């Protein structure tokens, strides 16, 4: 089984590190089998990592080796396969706990995805603590996953849903923050990085304000945890949600981090096997953390296959990844600025944003554009990116979006730029 980079590859600064990022083309192409696929006869240029990332061979191999040699249901099994599966399943939990800053393993709950993780908080914590006239604060740039659950909770409880506004560059407007987060505010839920604009939000500042008001804070880390070093302890955040599939890992595995003292007092959302300590015909007791929230047979292969993804990120280094993405983003902003017909949304400084760039062509509809790019082997997304209300704010119905990760190169961006020019010729004889 290949395990991706080993630290020595990175430390040595040798020929495999051409971008000063430790991410050599050869290593990347070796590690990500899909990149050798041809799309419509062209090399695949995958610029849709904000939707889901590609998987390194080590992840694919681990899923295969699990199914081919260790497959068993976890917990309680006394036989060898069950013990091996359980210990691998639980070992991933430990890796996650240390990946986000060294929290306790009890604080890491496996869910299906970031969406379910947020819902768990909105429903279990929310229904218990949110009352009429309380305030829930989110932002105008949230993904539906961090908007709709709060909208529903506000409606159910009679609480107010208040939005932190966004400026014309796609940054949060915090001038009025201590009026928005007021004494009635019970929870603030916001994304650390916008999946449309790329904006990186100053969550530390907001956490501080919220905690002064005794409000809880949930960070939607779906876009930040894969791309930035994130330390939940340093942030002092109460809940954080993210998804394995957006950080080289398998689909069907999401993570809720929650402070133990909060999780301890929350009710489960799903009831069944594994989440109980004792069941009688007329009552039941819940299991300890983290299992209280994990009813039924979990996505065992998904959790086990997530471990080598974390290893891969760790051995590459989250700092290096961030650096690499800043470099790509600067290059992309720079090159796209040269296309007069392209309008870019979001912050203009690469320090304030991640590698997600939403744009529109002045005359070509994003759907047509994405379709054309696909014919050139370039995968971008077009649509509302699960942030419909934000689209309204931006004054568009949809945008095209290119998003980068560890395996992208400047060449990829250059191909995008050149295909955007071709699209003008194709659609409007420009």
């Amino acid at each position, binding site marked *: 089984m290949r395990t991706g980079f080993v630290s020595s590859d990175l430390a040595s600064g040798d020929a495999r590190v051409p971008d000063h990022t430790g991410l050599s083309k050869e290593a990347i192409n070796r590690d990500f089998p899909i990149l050798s696929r041809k799309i*419509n*006869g062209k090399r695949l240029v995958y610029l849709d990592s904000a939707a889901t990332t590609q998987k390194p061979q080590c992840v694919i191999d681990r899923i295969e080796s699990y199914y081919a040699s260790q497959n068993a249901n976890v917990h309680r099994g006394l036989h060898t396969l069950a013990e091996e599966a359980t210990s691998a399943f639980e070992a991933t939990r430990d890796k996650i706990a240390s990946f986000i800053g060294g929290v306790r393993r009890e604080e890491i709950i496996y869910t299906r995805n970031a969406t379910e993780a947020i819902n768990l908080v909105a429903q279990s914590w929310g229904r218990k603590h949110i009352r009429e006239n309380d305030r829930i604060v989110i932002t105008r740039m949230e993904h539906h996953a961090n908007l709709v659950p709060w909208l529903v909770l506000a409606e159910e409880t009679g609480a107010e849903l208040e939005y932190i506004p966004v400026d014309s560059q796609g940054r949060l407007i915090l001038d009025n923050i201590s009026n928005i987060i007021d004494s009635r505010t019970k929870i603030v839920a916001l994304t650390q990085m916008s999946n449309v604009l790329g904006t990186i939000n100053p969550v530390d500042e907001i956490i501080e304000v919220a905690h002064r008001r005794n409000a809880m804070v949930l960070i939607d880390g779906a876009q930040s945890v894969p791309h930035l070093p994130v330390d939940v302890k340093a942030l002092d955040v109460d809940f954080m949600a993210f998804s394995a599939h957006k950080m080289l890992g398998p689909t069907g595995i999401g993570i809720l981090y929650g402070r133990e003292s909060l999780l301890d007092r929350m009710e489960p959302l799903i009831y069944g096997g594994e989440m109980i300590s004792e069941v009688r015909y007329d009552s039941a007791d819940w299991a300890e953390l983290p299992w209280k929230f994990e009813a039924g047979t979990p996505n065992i292969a998904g959790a086990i296959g997530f471990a080598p993804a974390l290893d891969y990120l760790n051995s590459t280094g989250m700092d290096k990844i961030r650096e690499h993405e800043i470099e790509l983003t600067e290059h992309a902003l720079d090159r796209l600025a040269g296309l007069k017909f392209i309008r870019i949304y979001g912050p203009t400084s690469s320090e304030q944003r991640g590698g997600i760039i939403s744009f529109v062509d002045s005359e070509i*509809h*994003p*759907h*047509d554009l994405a*379709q*054309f790019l696909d*014919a050139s082997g370039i995968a971008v997304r*077009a*649509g*509302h990116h699960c942030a*419909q209300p934000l*689209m309204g704010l931006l004054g*568009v*119905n*949809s945008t095209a979006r290119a998003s980068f990760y560890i395996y992208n190169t400047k060449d990829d961006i250059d191909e995008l730029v050149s295909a955007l020019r071709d699209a003008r010729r*194709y*659609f*409007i004889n420009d």
Partner: protein
Amino acid sequence: MTEQLDDMYRDIIMEHYRYPRGHKEISEPDLANQGHNPVCGDVTEIKLTLDGDRIEDISVNCVGCAISVASGSMLADMIEGKTISDVRKIAEVVRALIKGEEIDTDLDLGDLEALEGVRNFPVRIKCALLSWTTLVDAIEAREVGQTVEASTTE
């Protein structure tokens, strides 16, 4: 595979996209509906006046991608002067054509034939159907004596 792309974006489609027919205002329509595709935000507004059962005048104002705009334009072209029941038949044939389903018909679809290239791009089928769904919803509502507020492709 640029061939498949070319097969969808045929000249005739691009022509309708650039110069959409029916792009006008009808102030006192007998039938009107607005349709939208929540996936991409495309919106189409259809209004028409009737002379008995026959369509006298029609406007289609569609803001969207090449496929949805062209399909709306072709709709305007095609159904002017037809009866309501003709329109329903045509809409059925167009739907089958776009979805790549077999249908037995001797209807001459004219420009609309060009929409068959869409069948290779499943996600675009809704774009091509947007105006048709909007019109048919309005007709069906009228038949049961109701009016529609809006249609969606979801």
